């Protein structure tokens, strides 16, 4: 989905609020939320693709207003409610107030048919895929051409794994894009490397 989360290359943001030795956590509940996510993974209740997608499904105004650990918690609690592990009524009863959840999921998809194997040095194009469900293709590379640098081990295919759809594991390709190709006359010169799933790519 072309969601609010897909921020690469968006303009209008100000300076990074950087500090040396910056904090990881700012409150005790952030640590406990982070641990509850690990607990849910350990229990086998969810996988990381479902989790990332549940965050992406947050209502955009909520997504933008929430800090990192509130987004994390919202993804986690949404999945636990959707999977019937806890109920929203029970949680809201304990909390004594409402608990915002993410919006419902749209269908996922399986691997692309006839996936090609690429070699280092191949010129590849990112397909023009527009899907309503989870995808790990940042929008700034859609339709763009780059050069294959390496192949990764096979991973679960996120577009399927986030939705309980059957699919084969597939590799990602480390593809180097020129920032000039991504944003002509509109970027600092750099090579931008993205791990692109095999299903998203075709030979250029």
């Amino acid at each position, binding site marked *: 989905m072309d969601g609010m989360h897909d921020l690469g290359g968006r303009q209008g943001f100000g300076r990074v609020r950087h500090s040396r030795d910056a904090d990881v956590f700012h409150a005790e509940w952030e640590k406990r939320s982070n641990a509850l996510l690990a607990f849910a993974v350990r229990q086998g209740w969810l996988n990381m693709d479902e989790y990332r997608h549940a965050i992406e499904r947050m209502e955009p105004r909520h997504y933008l207003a929430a800090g990192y650990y509130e987004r994390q918690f919202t993804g986690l609690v949404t999945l636990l409610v959707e999977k019937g592990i806890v109920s929203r009524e029970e949680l809201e009863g304990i909390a004594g107030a409402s608990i915002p959840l993410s919006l419902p999921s749209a269908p996922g998809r399986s691997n692309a048919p006839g996936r090609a194997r690429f070699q280092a040095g191949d010129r590849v194009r990112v397909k023009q895929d527009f899907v309503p469900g989870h995808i790990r293709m940042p929008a700034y590379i859609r339709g763009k051409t780059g050069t294959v640098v390496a192949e990764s081990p096979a991973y679960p295919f*996120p577009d399927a794994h986030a939705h309980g759809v059957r699919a084969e594991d597939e590799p990602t390709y480390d593809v180097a894009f020129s920032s000039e190709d991504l944003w002509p006359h509109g970027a600092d010169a750099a090579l931008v490397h993205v791990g692109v799933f095999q299903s998203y790519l075709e030979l250029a």
Partner: protein
Amino acid sequence: MTDEPPVASAARRVAALESALEARGLNAKSFVDAHVRSAEQDWVPQNGARVVAKAWADPAFRERLLNNGKDAVVELGLSMPAHHRHLVVLENTPKVHNVICCTQCSCTAYSIIGLPPDWYKDFEYRARVVRESRTVLREMGLDLPADMEIRVWDTSADTRYMVLPLRPAGTEGWSEDKLASIVTKDAMIGVARL
């Protein structure tokens, strides 16, 4: 206009989930207590700093690290979660500077370089560093020479990255412990050079 019910604070929401799981007899609380301790004690940049120092001091290890990062860090007693199937180590040179990010969420090799700092997870860094790398790095205090090539790595899959900084001049003969003491999380993300 309807009156919206009040929204629970984030702290109350998290506590409510923890109590609901505890009420099911799942021992969530003891798991959470232990996990909070390990997040603070185990996932620290000193892990990655040891990897960097070893790579500087031991050329054969450096070779193995660049070939297969995930296997190489195991030699130092470190580990990565199962879903991080690959660790790619990005070597800085006098002419190439690497910097990592995650534009869609905030993925990092947290068991190696430490949990991501707050600014790494902020929208400013996620939106801008892929497109305005040189400008963002300069704003963050790293003013790279004009002829230095920049490579930005967007963590879009479960492959994880860390930057292998250039060994600073004047550190010849240092022990690995002393070398590790100068390696920072920022340098392994690539927003600082040592």
